[in-house]
């Protein structure tokens, strides 16, 4: 195992994500109402909450897919501002996995993965393909490298998307409901990969509805509702002794359906 595979060693400077009083409006609707969050290097944070609570918006603000209007977001020591150079520098260090996979359908799996390393990191094709194959092996589908995304199952596509994000050697990984668009029997193969990454020491912020995954892997669970963070707790306390009434209601709804 190379150093790359075992997670970034350079993230010893703690607090790689710092959000202070983040506000976000869509027109008149306030999606985020002053969110504060600090994530340390190597930490796995799971964001839970009912739909419309602003959790997706929040993590999409972390790599500027959405623009926040007030407050500060500092990723790996770089503040997200209008400066295009800052944004592209941050996006290089932050990998993201989407609910709908968002693979490029006109490129093969291997080209999907190597496109960004070759053009953004300026690696040689050989180097990029070598690392891409390592990651494809790690997520368990090296034999699919020359196929097109449309020929793969949903679970395989999502694993390609994870490999694509990781081949850029990001310091932080964002997961935006990575299993929500998958058939039930394919969820576990993606969760296994995510568990593996968490153990390898990646800094992970994940929005998910997989309670088992959250309980097992997360170091902290953040519960959001109505654009605010309602509760931050350890997984045991969150599921066994939630402090907030809203959390109790949410847990009773999802656990007793």
């Amino acid at each position, binding site marked *: 195992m190379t150093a790359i595979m075992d997670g970034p060693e350079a993230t010893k400077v703690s607090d790689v994500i710092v959000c202070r009083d983040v506000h976000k409006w869509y027109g008149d609707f306030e999606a985020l109402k002053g969110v504060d969050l600090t994530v340390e290097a190597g930490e796995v944070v799971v964001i839970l909450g009912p739909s419309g609570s602003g959790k997706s918006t929040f993590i999409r603000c972390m790599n500027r897919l959405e623009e926040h209007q007030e407050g500060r977001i500092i990723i790996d020591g770089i503040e997200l501002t209008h400066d295009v150079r800052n944004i592209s520098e941050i996006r290089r260090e932050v990998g993201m996995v*989407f609910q709908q996979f968002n693979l*490029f359908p006109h490129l093969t799996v291997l080209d999907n993965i190597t496109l960004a390393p070759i053009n953004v990191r300026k690696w040689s094709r050989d180097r990029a393909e070598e690392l891409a194959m390592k990651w494809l092996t790690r997520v368990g589908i090296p034999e699919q490298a020359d196929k097109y995304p449309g020929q793969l199952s949903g679970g395989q596509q999502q694993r390609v998307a994870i490999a694509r994000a990781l081949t850029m050697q990001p310091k932080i990984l964002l997961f935006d409901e990575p299993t929500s668009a998958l058939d039930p029997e394919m969820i576990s193969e993606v969760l296994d990969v995510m568990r593996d990454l968490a153990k390898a020491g990646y800094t992970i912020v994940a929005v998910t509805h997989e309670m088992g995954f959250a309980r097992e892997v997360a170091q902290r669970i953040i519960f959001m509702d109505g654009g605010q963070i309602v509760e931050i707790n350890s997984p045991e306390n969150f599921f066994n002794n939630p402090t907030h009434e809203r959390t109790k209601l949410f847990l009773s709804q999802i656990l007793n359906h």
Partner: protein
Amino acid sequence: MASVTTTTSSKPPVQQRGTFSKKFNLNYFLQDNISGSRGLLIWVSILAIVTVGLLVQQFNNAPGRTWVIFGVWAVAVLGTVVGELFTLHIGATRWLKENMFNNVSNSLMTLFLGLFVAIIGSGLWSWGVANATFDPALTHPDVRTFDGASWGVLWGARKLLLTGLLEPEHNGRVIQWTLTILGLWALSFIGTRESTRETGWGTWVRRIANVGWVLSPFISYIFLAGLEYTEPFIDTRRFILGTVLVVAVMAILWFFKVIQLNPMTTAMWVLAWPAAYLLWRGITLVSHNAEIFTPIDVDRWGGLLLTVIFAIFVNILSFPIGILLALGRRADVQGIPYWILWPIAIALTAWGLYTSTFGNCIGTPSFLCENVNLWATSRNTVEQIIAFWPLLIPLATWAFLRSFDGNFLQAFSVLFIEIIRGVPLITLLFMAIIMAPFFLPEDSQGLSNFWAVIVGYTIFSSSYMAELVRGGLQAIPKGQYEAADSLGINTLQKYRFIILPQALRILIPPLAGAVIGTFKSSSLVALVGMIDLVGSTKAIIANSQWLGLRTELYVFMFVLYFLVSSIVSWYSRRLEDQAGLGVR
């Protein structure tokens, strides 16, 4: 299912050749074909009456032919009926039943269309072949046989039809150019075939063809327009200006992080213009001394040559312009802020008001000082009001800020596209030819008609292309943009590698439509006095030697336009098949 015996009930019945599971039922047949609805009954009756009428008329006109057609039809109906009633279908009768005689109205249609095609075909045959003459010597009105076509006109007028007024000594160059382009096309075709695509030499063929296509505008220009040598060998002004321009564009792109520069690429871009310029001048000098590519007046191009040149030029130019306009219309760049715009607007307004009402030319540069002081020279109230035109500047500023938020790129693209699309092509062509000289300096030679029309036509075509391309861009899911962004890919790379390849694939069918449309609409330039295919046809018809031979020429034009359009659409389908490889 008479002959089939089954041992278990769960086994599906085996259907034998020549049998049908559905038995013929007269009631159902009548209901399906006649009595099912009133509309159907009326339609079948009208069709029957018209067909019988046509049949009787044709019996009187040409009994032999009509007997044959009716006989074939009757035999086919009989075969179908026998096959249907006695479950004795063979391949041919089943095909007839499914395609020609599957109900009463379609059976009648078959007879009707058979008669119709026979009438048209025999008429065309007797006009175009049986009674026609192919002798170019027999096309003059005095010696013409009037009951058939005189195809000789096509041969007699071939010069005007193919190249218009081009001097005959240049014909060889046109042929060489045609062969070059066809050769390039053949190379591309071979290089992209399924069997050669993956092989090593196929890749090389493709590469050579691609380089050829990139250079093809220059090759075409050298062949068709020739090279004019003027002293001095190197025009210092153009030499330096070109270099500065290229470097400036690169610097801007680099500043906005669209491209990255290292010493190698920087040197390449700095030397690009000088190298290209020297090469061009070198070719010119050699050609001048050896008198190979002597200059041709572009306004002498004509006929099919001109039509093809228009189509190629306009399509090749308007496509990239259209992409840029589409991207501009969608550009989400930081607008020019109001605190920069308003002071400039107010200053301009004040200056404009001053010069058009009180101003005089003392101490003003002469180019700023033409037609100033409209107030003093005004003759009536309307002209006095016009003197206050600078008041429109704040209005425009306000509209610009309000509608586009200071986004200059978007404003330019939207206004360009909407204004040009709102004007008929013929208006633009007239403007290009008649009005453009008014805007040019008086002492200049002015544009030749050809270039004026190319500019006007390209502007028109690119605004349509822009909207096509925009449609393609909007068809790409938002997730593709987001995935690209999340990987840190910059805007240029995002469009180059991810968005445009997918969008252009979607756009192949509508783009083929646009290419065909541009090709056919180029016939409008005949209205502004250009001798393209349509223009030369008009000239031939008016020529006393071929007076009145319009049908032959229009048929020829029809065939030519149809052929080229079909080739384009066939090629686009081939492209579609190739491009579809990735999305399975």
